[in-house]
């Protein structure tokens, strides 16, 4: 029997997030010390245990006869034949293969679309989203446990910030919002995008100019008050570091008006943040063909930006010609799952496989946003694998890679410790013909529970 201690992840994890992990570790420790008889935790901390035929962790090796320990909606441990406390809730899935829930990097789910082309980077997809009105369970049934909803766009402009949701929460039946301000979605053409950035740059210059004028004014005003402020200045400078920082600042502020920067157009604020490297979000650009990729790469290099791409439809050509560009730059890209046709030929090939081979980080999207397409995702993935895409890459493309694209790879996307307990239960290996998602767990809760007799 393997003790929980035997699992080697402890040290690494403790380095990463000591504060957050500490209580958990303690719990585990207690568990092992008292052979699981007594747990100091309350009823809310009751462990959930999944016993499965096989666990596909994505982050590491597959684990046969896996036991997954879940607490507070997170995976606490995973391994073969782990011991677990007696009062745990055990989900017996020894006839199931389990894997992390699917992550969709760009979708509308079943949200309606609006047509709006302007640049308004400050708008939020969240404002289009009414949690109580959206039934996302059908998507969960297809295995999607996390999805980024991009703001509606009419095929141009910068429509705003995406929203990350989970189809169902652990508490109520409503979708749960994971991030209300995720990536900035760009549907502009190259030229439009460049002009938007140029406008944002103008905004920065506007502030800079105002600041310079203000400083100039201050300098002119300074000689008048020089006798008074001159002795004060060295005093401030020599003040101990531990002294309250506000004191010296407020003193001159009393005599001088503080600089009031001119307001920045709100629709450009996120772009200004990007240009000033203050942004904590990514850019995701919708592209239609290879030329657009080259164009955006060029513009983004000029402005020292980096973007991920999403291709939802291909117009004249597809991304075949941009594979090298995307691969060399190791870009993140989300593409619909389907075999592509070499431009102007009838030769089919797997774009996903080519992109992965070249070095790009591929996330897979269903061919469209309707529920049927989500349900077909698995069949489509199998086709891709049959056309030369390694299974491992295919698995990552629906779990870890989109999680990375969304910046959530520390929270979800794999089955390892400290990741959200978003778990799919399949009746067979995911790439086996006919394998289906039977049950779905999101955040430790069985959102799609097992049906009797299945």
């Amino acid at each position, binding site marked *: 029997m393997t003790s929980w201690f035997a699992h080697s992840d402890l*040290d690494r994890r*403790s*380095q990463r997030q*000591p504060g*957050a992990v*500490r*209580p*958990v*570790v*303690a*719990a585990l*420790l*207690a568990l092992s010390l008292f052979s699981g008889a007594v747990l100091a*935790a*309350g009823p809310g*901390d009751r462990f959930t245990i999944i016993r499965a035929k096989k666990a596909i962790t994505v982050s590491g090796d597959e684990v046969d006869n896996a036991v997954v320990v879940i607490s*507070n*909606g997170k995976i606490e441990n995973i391994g073969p034949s782990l011991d677990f406390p007696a009062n745990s809730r055990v989900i017996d899935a020894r006839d199931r293969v389990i894997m992390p829930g699917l992550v969709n990097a760009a979708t509308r789910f079943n949200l309606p679309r609006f047509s709006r082309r302007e640049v308004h980077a400050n708008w939020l997809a969240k404002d289009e989203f009414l949690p109580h009105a959206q039934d996302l369970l059908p998507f969960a049934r297809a295995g999607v446990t996390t999805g980024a909803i991009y703001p509606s766009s009419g095929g141009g402009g910068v429509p705003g910030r995406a929203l990350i949701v989970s189809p169902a929460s652990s508490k109520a039946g409503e979708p*749960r919002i*994971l*991030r*209300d301000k995720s990536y900035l979605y760009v549907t502009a*053409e*190259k*030229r439009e995008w460049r002009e938007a950035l140029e406008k944002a740059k103008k905004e*920065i210059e506007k*502030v*800079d100019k105002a*600041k*310079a004028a203000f400083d100039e004014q201050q300098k002119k005003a300074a000689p008048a008050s020089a006798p008074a402020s001159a002795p004060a200045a060295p005093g401030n400078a020599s003040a101990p570091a531990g002294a309250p920082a506000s004191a010296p600042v407020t003193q001159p502020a009393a005599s001088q008006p503080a600089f009031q*920067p001119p307001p920045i157009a709100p629709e450009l604020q996120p772009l200004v943040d990007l*240009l*000033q*490297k*203050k*942004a*904590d*979000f990514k850019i995701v650009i919708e592209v239609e063909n*290879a*030329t657009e990729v*080259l*164009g955006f790469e*060029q513009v983004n*290099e*000029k*402005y*020292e930006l980096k973007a991920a791409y999403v291709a939802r439809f291909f117009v*004249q*050509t597809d991304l075949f*010609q941009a594979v090298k560009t995307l691969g060399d730059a190791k870009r993140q890209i989300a593409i619909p799952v389907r075999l592509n046709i070499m*431009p*102007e*030929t009838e030769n089919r090939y797997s774009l996903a496989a080519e992109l992965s081979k070249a070095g790009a980080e591929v996330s897979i999207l269903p061919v469209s946003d309707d529920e049927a397409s989500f349900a077909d995702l698995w069949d489509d993935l199998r086709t891709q694998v049959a056309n030369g895409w390694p299974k491992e890459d295919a698995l990552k493309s629906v779990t870890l890679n989109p999680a*990375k694209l969304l*910046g*959530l*790879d*520390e*929270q979800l996307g794999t089955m390892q410790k400290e990741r959200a307990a978003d778990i799919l239960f399949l009746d067979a290996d995911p790439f086996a013909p006919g394998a289906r998602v039977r049950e779905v767990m999101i*955040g430790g809760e069985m959102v799609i529970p097992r049906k009797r007799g299945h």
Partner: protein
Amino acid sequence: MRSFAICNWIVRRPAPSRRCPASGASSRRAGGIGAWAWLVAALAIAASSQPRAIAEEPASQPESAPSTQPAETQPAETQPADSRPASQPGSAPASKPGKSASSTSTSSSSTSAAAEEEKDEYLAVVHGTVHTVTGGTLPNATVLCKNGRILDIGANLPIPTECKIVDATNRHVYPGFVAVAAAGIHNAPNPEDTTDVFRLSFELASAAGITAAAAGEDVAKVTLGSIDGMLLRRGGLVDLSGALRTPLGRRELRRDLDKVRKYLRDQRRYELEKASNEDAEEPDKSVIKGKLERYMKLLNGELLATAQADRVTDLREVADLAATYGFQVTIRGAAEGWICASDLARARANVIVTPRRQIDPTPNSNQPTGSSIETARILQDHGLAVAVVPAQPTVSVGGLAGRDLLNLNMEAAFAVRGGMSNENALRTITIDAARALGVEDRVGSIEVGKDADLIVMDGDALSYLSLVWTTIVNGKVVYEKEKSNLLSHVRPTGDPDQSDTTFDDIWPRTLEWPENFNYVAKPKKPAKGGATSSNASSPSSGPTSSAASAPASAPRAAESKPASE
């Protein structure tokens, strides 16, 4: 474009020191606190675990997802961008981190360090017969290109060690063809931003040897596979066709041009008088607005006028306008230009002609009318720059071969039919075409300093048996016949006498017809012509070898059965 490239190159280089503080801190932490220490600590606060939903901790986001947070934020925060003076001369090149925050400008791109490491790109087309168009033909010569420009032309040029070589032995090197009218190759307006550089029409144009084409009012290059260096000239054309369509329009145009001319003259007079005469009155510039602004540029020589005109009367009107107001015009059509060639010559017009296009003479006219295949030659003899374009200015895969830009050189061949020399006919699709678009300083001939837009052909540019083997745009190979599917199967060795492959690779994948196939008639007699289904599939046998000696083999199958009755 080039300065952008340099700038980008700098930016792309990773700054090695960025992540140092963070990683240093974490390793220190890891080393300092051992696993047993954790054990003890954990026991103490075992019960106090807190559920943490992801959404509830936005504050931890930067920490948990470092990839979303550029590491450059830190220097930017400690030294806020907007508090710094906008420009600190000298400081930017010296320290790379200082450049991070808001300095998206490209001003620091031309630092000497960057220039040194920026590699020069060389390309040499060697051992070809070089048709410079403007400077004669050089046998067995080399064209050496550097960074997209022609550096040198001549025999036995020293070639740099790192240089792409295009072997043109037994081949001919021409400047890329210029399509003076084109639709569907580039998108317009703003071709450089809107054109898909991988589209089929781009590849077709490259295969046809076209390296530059009109794109709306702009002129752009066919940079297959690259978005760099596409735009050749922005909006240099004023189309007067609309204004000239009706008599009323013509009168209005002349009135407008009169206004502009008067203003320009007054302005010039004022410039002259200003020094000596204090009372000199500056002309009112406010009258110049709207289309008059464009007309002013036209009369200043900044823009080229174009006009569609075919009939003598129309041609004379355009010629008179150009001569009267002294602007440069490019006339499209000019079907009856042979009749009024001297008028056009006096106006120093450029002409875009489709030699093959026919207009029958007007019946009962008391003066010569109708088109002539010799028009192009006659106009050229009168000293006009004549450019040639097919009637259908697109690249088409519809199948009606030889009537579009895919065979631009064939239209020039029709100019030869009209009496033009081969050399002059070549000018009509190269240098004179470039002149008609106002880009003759960049493209249209092989000259030192011009853009390295070259094509390598396996024969005379105007021969119907010649194909483009290599197309070079901006010093980069964009099309190679062997590597592109389009025409690789046609004369694969370049020898016109040698037959190409059969189409077995296309259809049927195998030429085996099943025994019970419905439409195979009873084999009453062996197939004629020596080509049965079996030997047609092997390229070396049957039709291929017999085709090489065509005249001898042709008649066997051709016995005229019905004719004998």
